[in-house]
């Protein structure tokens, strides 16, 4: 319609323009009239003009169609005329016409009808629609395994001007919904020829699970065509359908996919599918049509070897498939090619990341060599783990340069790696085999081995490892010219004769790539050679001087050069020659009877290869008188010796040694030291600590050997194993003389450095003295460092005392065991005598002096000590008249005289009678002595007995010394009278007893003894009762100065405090003298005990 309108309107305008052009002002009126008529005529036709529509399929022919005016039959068309064209009119009787394409621009088209009607159109290319034919030659196929549709068609480009652009649109419909699941458009170019195009589409859903239809349409864009471009019609749909077989219901089957990708599985089922799972994982079901379902797996993980199972479960069956998820092959890593033998090239590589695929899906490797064009394939089902892959490529003869490409393929893809090599630089020979050793001479052998392979064009570099038995190892290189499948021979020199060697070989090439493995070891003993020198020789004269003993040492193995079979010895002097031959090897000593001449001794060692050079030594020993025996001590297992260089010694020094306890000739071993040395360290396995050795240093001159030094030594000193045997030579009261013997050298085990002597008071059975505690203060120690001293006097000892004596020897190795002995010193008789005599003499003198003084001053003493005191008489009278003189008590108490006779004569009877009375009276007091002492001075009535006469016994000094001033009478009334009788009887026997015990009742004894000397005095004394005379006691109390002045002893003995006291005023020490009981104590005891204080 639009076209039509545009076409009509311009025709009107053309008319009006033409009208304007033809009309002029003079003709304006007539023109207006004509215009009016024309418009009228046109207005008549306008109602009858219908559409003109033109299309083209190929831009060459236009197909135009129009609708005739109302009331006009299409069959009445008479002709169609196109202006500006030759044969512009086409006769026809229909309403459509095919015309050749018109040139661009407007063209007037007139259609005439039989009935005279006429229609006019303006036709332009822009109004023409280009609608290509439906695409043809369409073929559709499907690849079920990959779920891919392949579409092919022909563009029939030859029918179109070219170049033209064609735009295609393809739709894929999935049955039965017929909804497009894919709509895609793309462009091609028409090039004037018929071209077949194809389009592939991979379906997510397996193709088996649905029916697919494909349609296509297109339009053409030709730049010179200005009309409309319109899509062609859709082609007829092509269908792909799959006829399901009864067995397989799940798709895709056995698919190999990349791990991590997505995949859809579908299940065709006639019955309801209950579940779908992959491995253990259940997946939501996607319903397709009917009972068909699908599941979609995203990011699938690598399968195990047998694949991942996908299972659909229906009400009555199980359907499934297996999917293999893995990876394409990794790029082969560490691709390395080498040859062992120039026959084949071995390429090895690491496959890299595992593909996760095995069996038929495993990676196949192809090794191709581009220069020769050959290739080999590696195929195996199982995957090697931790192992490099290898492929052998057979070499072409003469080809050195190789360009290898290794390609790995599996269903998911492929990868490759390349290496470019010169094979002569990549040689790793096989292991050398058949290693053989052959003797050439004692120091040279030949080694031969076989190396499989063709090495004809290259040189081989081989290493020969030479091991001695002593694990000394040496590697030598040898270059040999390569050969084909050959053995190789190399001479090995500078070997040691008669030595066990172990050889092995490995090879490479001069252009080093890799060593072969070491060949097997081959052991070989080189042959013997003559000994390189004579044995080390020494000689000694036998002890009787008739035989010369020749010693030699076995040669070390490196100088023996073989097994020493025997030795030959010859002794040559100016006069004679003596020989000993064929002394078999284990013997290294020979004895020859010789005169005492100067001989040259020659020793030769022999092995199977021959005799050694002779080893010579002179028998002469040059005397040396200036030999001092020195001492030396070693260090651990060796001993160091040094000496002053002696220019006279021209050949060498010899040090020989032996155990000092062995008899002569003594030789343990010797060493030779070069003449320019002045020191050496002697070591020997035979050395033992604690053993004394004699070392002798000899210097060698042209005339013979001379002893230079003699040394005794220990390599290590030890403590003596025995104690010195000692005896007591003499014992006195204050000293002991000890004597000991030497310790034998074997038991000394070192140089004696001295003795230790301990002594201590002690007796044999006293545990304390059995062992010496060194820290004990009583132990006295004497260190005797003068080892020549063999006696010791120990002085300042106590007499008659047991002493424990111990003697030990010591070396630098330590103290030896101890030897002990108990000795008792003798008594000191002189001292004893002196100790007795001096006190006796002193006592006598004191006694005499005292007696004289007392005699001379008796008046004064009497005045002082025995003034006339009446009261005691009264007291006495009271006491005795109560019992004896009853009835005249009051009178007699005051009388002094009658008491005096009583005192003397009635001693015996009185001693009994008052005893009873006193007992009765005093008992209560005696029971409480503490109170009585206080009560005494006041209670005159109760204390009515006569106090004891405190007599000072000056004549008995022992009492003074032993008891001192503490010899105080203390006795109570009960015991006072009991000892009274006995001392009277024993008085003459031992006055000492009396001295220890002085009861009050001594009074009659003393008075009896001295009655002639001082009768008056005695009377007074007997009648004197100090306790009764309070005033007098006060005067002579110990506190009074008067008492002190008169006599201290008297004061002590006469102490009023001690009279009634039942307590001891003397220290208990005096009581501790057990020997003083009964028989008293002697001066001997006194001296005996004194040291104990």
């Amino acid at each position: 319609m639009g076209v039509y309108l545009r076409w009509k309107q311009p025709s009107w305008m053309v008319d009006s323009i033409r009208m304007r052009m033809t009309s002029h002002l003079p003709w304006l009126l007539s023109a207006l009239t004509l215009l009016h008529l024309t418009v009228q005529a046109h207005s008549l036709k306008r109602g009858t003009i219908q559409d003109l529509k033109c299309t083209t399929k190929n831009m060459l022919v236009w197909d135009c169609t129009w609708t005739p005016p109302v009331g006009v039959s299409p069959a009445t068309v008479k002709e169609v005329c196109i202006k500006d064209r030759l044969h512009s009119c086409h006769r026809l009787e229909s309403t459509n016409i095919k015309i050749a394409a018109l040139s661009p621009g407007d063209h007037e088209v007139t259609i005439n009808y039989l009935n005279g009607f006429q229609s006019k159109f303006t036709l332009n290319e822009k109004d023409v629609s280009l609608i290509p034919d439906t695409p043809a030659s369409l073929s559709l196929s499907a690849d079920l395994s990959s779920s891919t549709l392949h579409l092919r068609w022909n563009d029939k480009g030859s029918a179109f001007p070219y170049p033209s652009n064609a735009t295609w649109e393809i739709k894929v419909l999935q049955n039965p919904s017929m909804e497009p699941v894919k709509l895609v458009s793309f462009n091609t170019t028409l090039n004037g020829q018929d071209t077949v195009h194809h389009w592939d589409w991979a379906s997510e859903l397996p193709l088996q699970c649905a029916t697919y239809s494909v349609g296509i349409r297109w339009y053409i864009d030709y730049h010179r065509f200005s009309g409309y471009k319109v899509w062609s019609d859709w082609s007829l749909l092509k269908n792909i359908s799959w006829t399901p077989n009864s067995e397989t219901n799940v798709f895709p089957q056995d698919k190999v996919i990349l791990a991590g990708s997505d995949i859809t599985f579908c299940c065709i089922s006639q019955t309801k599918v209950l579940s779908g799972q992959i491995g253990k994982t259940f997946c939501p079901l996607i319903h397709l049509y009917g009972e068909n379902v699908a599941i979609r797996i995203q990011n699938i993980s690598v399968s195990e070897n047998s694949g991942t199972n996908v299972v659909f479960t229906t009400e009555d069956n199980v359907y499934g498939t297996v999917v293999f998820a893995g990876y394409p092959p990794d790029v082969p890593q560490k691709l390395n090619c080498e040859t062992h033998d120039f026959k084949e090239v071995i390429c090895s590589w690491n496959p890299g990341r595992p593909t996760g695929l095995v069996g038929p899906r495993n990676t196949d490797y192809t090794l191709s060599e581009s220069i020769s064009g050959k290739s080999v394939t590696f195929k195996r089902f199982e995957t090697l783990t931790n192992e490099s892959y290898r492929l052998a490529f057979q070499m072409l003869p003469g080809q050195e340069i190789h360009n290898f490409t290794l390609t790995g393929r599996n269903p998911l893809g492929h990868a490759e790696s390349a290496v470019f090599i010169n094979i002569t630089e990549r040689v790793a020979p096989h292991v050398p085999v058949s290693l053989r050793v052959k003797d050439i001479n004692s120091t040279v052998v030949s080694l031969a081995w076989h190396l499989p392979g063709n090495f004809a064009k290259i040189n081989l570099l081989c290493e020969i490892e030479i091991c001695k038995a002593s694990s000394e190892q040496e590697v030598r290189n040898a270059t040999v010219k390569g050969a084909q499948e050959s053995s190789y021979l190399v001479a090995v020199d500078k070997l040691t004769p008669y030595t066990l060697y172990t050889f092995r070989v490995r090879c490479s090439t001069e252009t080093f790539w890799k060593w072969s493995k070491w060949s097997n070891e081959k052991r070989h003993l080189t042959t013997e050679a003559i000994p390189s020198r004579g044995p080390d020789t020494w000689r000694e004269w036998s002890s009787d001087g008739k035989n010369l003993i020749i010693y030699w040492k076995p040669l070390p193995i490196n100088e023996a050069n073989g097994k020493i079979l025997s030795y030959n010895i010859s002794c040559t002097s100016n006069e004679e020659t003596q020989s000993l031959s064929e002394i078999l090897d284990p013997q290294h000593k020979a004895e020859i009877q010789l005169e005492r001449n100067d001989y040259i001794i020659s020793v030769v060692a022999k092995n199977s290869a021959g005799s050694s050079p002779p080893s010579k030594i002179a028998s002469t020993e040059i005397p040396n008188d200036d030999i001092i025996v020195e001492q030396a001590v070693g260090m651990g297992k060796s001993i160091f010796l040094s000496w002053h260089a002696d220019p006279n010694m021209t050949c060498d020094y010899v040090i020989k040694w032996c155990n000092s306890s062995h008899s002569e000739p003594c030789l343990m071993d010797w060493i030779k030291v070069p003449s320019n040395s002045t020191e050496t360290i002697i070591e020997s396995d035979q050395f033992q600590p604690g053993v004394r050795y004699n070392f002798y240093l000899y210097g060698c001159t042209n005339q013979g050997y001379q002893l230079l030094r003699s040394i005794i030594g220990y390599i290590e000193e030890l403590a003596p194993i025995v104690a010195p045997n000692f005896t007591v030579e003499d014992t006195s009261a204050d000293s002991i003389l000890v004597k000991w013997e030497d310790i034998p050298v074997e038991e000394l085990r070192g140089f004696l450095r001295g003795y230790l002597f301990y002594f201590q008071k002690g007796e044999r059975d006293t545990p304390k003295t059995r062992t010496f505690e060194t820290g004990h203060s009583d132990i006295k120690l004497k260190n005797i460092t003068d080892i020549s001293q063999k006696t010791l006097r120990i002085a300042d000892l106590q007499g008659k005392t047991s002493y424990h004596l111990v003697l030990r020897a010591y070396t630098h190795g330590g103290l030896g065991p101890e030897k002990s002995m108990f000795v008792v010193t003798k008594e000191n008789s002189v001292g004893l005598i002196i100790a007795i005599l001096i006190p006796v003499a002193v006592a006598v003198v004191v006694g005499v002096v005292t007696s004289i003084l007392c005699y001379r001053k008796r008046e004064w003493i009497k005045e002082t000590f025995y003034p006339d005191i009446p009261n005691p008489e009264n007291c006495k009278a009271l006491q005795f008249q109560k019992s004896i003189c009853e009835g005249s008590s009051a009178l007699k108490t005051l009388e002094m005289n009658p008491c005096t006779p009583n005192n003397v004569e009635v001693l015996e009877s009185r001693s009994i009678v008052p005893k009873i009375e006193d007992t009765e009276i005093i008992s209560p007091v005696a029971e409480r002595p503490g109170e009585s002492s206080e009560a005494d001075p006041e209670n005159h009535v109760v204390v009515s007995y006569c106090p004891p006469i405190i007599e000072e016994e000056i004549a008995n000094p022992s009492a003074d010394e032993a008891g001192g001033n503490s010899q105080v009478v203390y006795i109570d009334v009960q015991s006072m009278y009991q000892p009274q009788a006995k001392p009277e009887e024993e008085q003459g026997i031992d006055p000492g007893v009396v001295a220890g015990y002085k009861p009050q009742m001594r009074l009659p004894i003393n008075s009896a003894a001295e009655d002639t000397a001082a009768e008056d005095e005695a009377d007074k004394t007997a009648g004197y009762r100090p306790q009764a005379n309070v005033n007098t006691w006060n005067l002579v109390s110990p506190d009074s100065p008067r008492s002190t002045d008169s006599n201290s002893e008297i004061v002590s003995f006469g102490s009023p405090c001690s009279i009634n006291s039942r307590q001891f005023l003397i220290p208990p020490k005096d009581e501790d003298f057990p020997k003083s009981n009964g028989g008293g104590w002697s001066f001997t005891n006194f001296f005996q005990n004194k040291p104990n204080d």
Partner: protein
Amino acid sequence: MQKNTSTLLQTYLQYQGSPFSDPGFAAPELQLSSLPSAAVSFKTWHAMDDAERLSRAQGAFLALTQHLQLVGDDQSDLNPGSPVLLAQLGAARLRAQGLLGNMAAIMTALGLPIPPEEDTLGLVSFGASAFERKCRGYIVTREYGHWTDRAVRDLALLKAKYPA
């Protein structure tokens, strides 16, 4: 041999992946048309005579030997790196062949005709998918166990009937 059959089944399933390898996996509905099922009702079995029992067992073990070979081939494809499984399958086949020989001897001794060997597999087996092969192997190893149990029962009956 009975113990070996159960070990074989467990080993086999273990190598096939889930759900075959899941604990307690069983799919009794899966059957092979080429392999007679050992399941038989007691009544039917009891009604059989010795010849029929032996004949059926002999036929089953003939089929089993062929199927075990097939399963071995399948598994060397699916599980090439599992020598344990392959060895057990091979051993099972040899045992089945041994039992087959024993049964033939018994049948000969009883004077029964020995059925001719025939190809029970036919041509269909080669195009099987991996899943079918796994299922097939499962059925074969399962039926191998069942048939062994049944053969033990059959032979025990025979032994009781013909002592020494």
